[in-house]
């Protein structure tokens, strides 16, 4: 019970996010209007995804340093959970796009970048399922994971910010910047707990997946 304080924190923060996120006052901005509340969900999905992919990267590097089966389990399950959060990020973004930009999918560099980044993680899943030998699979997928992470970072963080690449997202191509909403103290009071809450939830799901996989391997090895 002592070690599960962060789970309680997660529940408290997410309950607060849902209640305050829908009821607290938000600034009236052109185009966005009430849909700005999606910030507490859409943006947090990406934060959670980045966090869990970073965990996955960390354990992949650790595996290459010292081939321990447990590192492989953590890296793989974290990636799977990250993919789920990535899909949630894309779908919440798609909904938001429908009501602000008028279409489910636009040819925005951030949208395409995120989709391709997820595609490279789908390839990670395919790669893992394609190999039977456990050690070989762990090693090759660890190498692939490092590559995929770097490419994802380039695509999500660097590419949309380049000159000459126009994005509809806030802060790009003449759109109002994220900082403009962030300055609003009401939104900040919900947004920061929301980010922490979603990251904790992501960690929680990943820890369950990791423990299930450990048990599966244990039963398999008996």
């Amino acid at each position, binding site marked *: 019970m002592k070690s599960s304080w962060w789970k309680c924190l997660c529940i408290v923060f997410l309950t607060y996010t849902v209640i305050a996120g829908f009821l607290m006052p938000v600034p009236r901005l052109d185009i966005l209007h009430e849909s700005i509340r999606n910030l507490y969900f859409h943006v947090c999905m990406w934060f959670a995804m980045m966090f869990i992919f970073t965990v996955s990267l960390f354990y992949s590097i650790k595996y290459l340093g010292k081939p321990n089966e447990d590192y492989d389990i953590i890296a793989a399950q974290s990636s799977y959970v990250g993919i789920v959060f990535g899909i949630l990020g894309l779908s919440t973004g798609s909904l938001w796009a429908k009501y602000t930009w008028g279409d489910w999918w636009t040819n925005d560099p951030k949208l395409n970048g995120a989709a391709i980044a997820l595609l490279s993680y789908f390839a990670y899943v395919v790669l893992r399922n394609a190999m039977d030998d456990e050690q070989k699979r762990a090693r090759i997928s660890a190498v692939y994971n490092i*590559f995929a992470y770097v490419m994802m970072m380039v695509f999500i963080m660097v590419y949309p910010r380049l000159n*000459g690449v126009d994005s509809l997202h806030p802060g790009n191509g003449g759109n109002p910047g994220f900082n403009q909403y962030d300055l609003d103290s009401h939104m900040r009071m919900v947004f920061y707990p929301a980010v922490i809450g979603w990251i904790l939830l992501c960690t929680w799901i990943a820890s369950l997946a990791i423990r299930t996989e450990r048990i599966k391997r244990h039963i398999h090895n008996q």
Partner: protein
Amino acid sequence: MAIISFPLLVPLLITAQHLSGMAVAGSDTSGYSGLVAALLALDAMIAALCYLLFPYLWRD
């Protein structure tokens, strides 16, 4: 197995495609330097990662 590397090469392809699109249109040249720098940085990064990670792949 080699086909798996395709998604990893897409960033390179898209940057190059964007750049050649701008070159053909020939109107707005302000974004060139950033994209060329990005392309070179991507190349350098891929080369560095390959150099570092290949020994692990090869160790069979």
